[in-house]
């Protein structure tokens, strides 16, 4: 009898070990979120880190107003899509739209809801140059492919007639960690440069032709700040909060536009006007048409199953979708995110109504 008890004890200990080993994998989050869901959380979501600050503000405000608690884990877009596909969260969030292959793996049709607009800015370190550098997408692509290696290259000089550019080497800095920022940036370069579209293409991680990889916005900006002649790309919000020098980029309309919340929203408005009625909102708004539109902008999305399996949760989720489109958008700019243009909000409300909660 004692032998059996000991066996049970040993197995229990092994099971405890076995549980530990899964800790770093993303699926463990589902177990903990399910546990939390049981204790006072109404909805759980997981995904993108880029919009995490505004999402946590929304969820806090929403809980204060309605009492509905939403638990959001910023584990990254890839993890958010995986957990949504496995059905372990009530909604996902991603900086890049789901691919057709990913949609096929999900348990039913998934709706993409744009929430806010993120913009990516080009920052640089050129001592003595105070007015914003003017660049075109082509030139940025050439720099990031290692074909422009000096700051006084004729192609940069031609865009900046008033400036005396140094003869120093260009040090290219890019993100080393997988990131929605890199996705937006490479999406833009792919759309303006056919050569870039072929290789390295667009993605959250790339095989970069040149440059140094730095971790996070803070790593990129730290490297750029310290190295004269460096160029890098960071999120608009990060650049604003840290007063980084940013380049003005030429848009489709031919203007040089400095990055700002207003010019990012204009990019979405320009793109929204041309949306077909049956769009699934998996759209890229880089290089968007329209006056004043900043060219490196992108939506970030909430991912929601069109057919909700749990009627109570589905109804709560639907109400939240309406809330963020009306109330939430108002506070986006306070955290340096660009809100959706008005012409999109009404269309998205109709889309939120299309979420079905009945069996």
């Amino acid at each position, binding site marked *: 009898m004692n032998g059996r008890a000991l066996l049970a004890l040993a197995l229990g200990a092994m099971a405890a070990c076995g549980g530990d080993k899964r800790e770093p994998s993303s699926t463990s989050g589902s177990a903990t979120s399910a546990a939390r869901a049981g204790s006072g959380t109404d909805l759980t979501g997981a995904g993108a880190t880029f919009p995490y600050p505004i999402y946590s503000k929304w969820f806090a405000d929403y809980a204060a107003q309605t009492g509905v608690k939403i638990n959001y884990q910023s584990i990254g877009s890839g993890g958010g899509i995986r957990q949504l596909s496995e059905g372990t969260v009530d909604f996902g969030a991603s900086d890049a739209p789901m691919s057709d292959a990913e949609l096929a793996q999900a348990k039913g049709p998934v709706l993409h809801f744009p929430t806010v607009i993120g913009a990516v800015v080009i920052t640089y370190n050129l001592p003595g140059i105070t007015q914003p550098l003017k660049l075109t997408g082509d030139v940025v692509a050439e720099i990031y492919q290692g074909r422009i290696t000096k700051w006084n290259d004729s192609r940069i000089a031609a865009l900046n007639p008033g400036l005396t550019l140094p003869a120093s080497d260009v040090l290219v800095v890019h993100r080393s960690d997988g990131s929605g920022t890199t996705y937006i940036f490479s999406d833009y370069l792919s759309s303006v440069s056919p050569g870039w579209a072929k290789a390295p293409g667009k993605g959250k991680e790339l095989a970069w032709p040149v440059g140094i990889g730095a971790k996070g916005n803070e790593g990129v900006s*730290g490297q750029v700040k310290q190295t004269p002649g460096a160029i890098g790309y960071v999120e608009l919000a990060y650049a604003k909060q840290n007063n980084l020098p940013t380049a003005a980029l030429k848009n489709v309309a031919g203007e040089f536009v400095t990055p700002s919340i207003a010019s990012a929203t204009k990019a979405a408005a320009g793109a929204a006007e041309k949306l077909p009625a049956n769009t699934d909102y998996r759209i890229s708004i880089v290089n968007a048409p329209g006056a004043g539109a900043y060219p490196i902008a992108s939506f970030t999305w909430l991912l929601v199953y069109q057919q909700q399996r749990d009627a109570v949760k589905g109804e709560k989720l639907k109400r939240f979708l309406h809330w963020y489109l009306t109330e939430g958008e108002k506070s986006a700019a306070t955290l340096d995110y660009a809100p959706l243009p008005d012409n999109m909000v009404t269309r998205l409300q109709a889309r939120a109504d299309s979420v079905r909660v009945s069996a």
Partner: protein
Amino acid sequence: MSEPATAPAVVVHDDGDEPVLRIDGRAIGDRIYRWMIAGFALCIPLLVGLVAIEIAVAGWPTLRKFGVGFLTSSTWDPVTGDFGAAPAIYGTLVSSAIALLIATPLAIGVSVFLSELAPARLRRPMAFLVDLLAAIPSVVYGLWGIFVLLPVLRSPVMPFLRDTLGLGATPFFTGPAYGPSMLAAGIILAIMVLPFIASVSREVLMAVPRAQREAALALGATRWEVIRIAVLPYARSGIIGGIILGLGRALGETMAVTMVIGNRHEISASLFAPGYTMASLIANEFSEASSDAHLSALMAVGFTLFVITIVVNAIARWLVWQVSRGASGRVV
């Protein structure tokens, strides 16, 4: 230990007073305890085995698809799904080697000073400070690396090594001095592993019997000779054990290295060039990897790191065994 084990305190009572409590001359409590402890101990190899199997299974599609090419190719392209880990493997080994090259002499110096030379009232606070280095989170080392170490390396250290000392003539110190580099990673790692090696070495040196030192002194040895002839050889295997501990830390260190190594998939002889390590590659890309091929490739990197760590540790253990078998240097 070679003596026959002494009989347990409890023996079988033939008078039948308490037959239930004894089996084979041992108390049941002892047996339960023994099995329980054995179960806990078995947990460790079981855990290691499960981790290895799990990583190997997850990485298998990549290993099967690329075969040896996974270990030799320098291409890492998540967009096209073409994966080769050679630069990361190279970077892991080289950055750890640099770290040990820098940290070992420093750590041994520190431990010899603390155990042999330092005034008694300095020993405790200094040993405490060394141990404190081990308690600093690695992300703090990384930030320190970005904001303090890299600017200092960029100027004056790197230009000094390359131009003033003329090391630029060798292939190891060439190229532009941007800061993020294999050298920076090696230096950060050196600082991080130093307390491990120094702490273990100090303990080992303190454990060297007084008689060793006195015997050497009696033979007319100077202080330096005592340390060299009587103390260090006696502690040799323990010190190497400390170095192995440091090596293990260096191979697996992630965050601080990621922040200063430049994260570039390229094998370059120059220590000024950026590189990559296996641990940083996984840390950088795991959270946003969504395709199965990409995840599998990262798992394959993890499995490779696992195997390399075991192999390197096995070699190091073998070294210790070789050294301690000789066990020379005993004066008494």
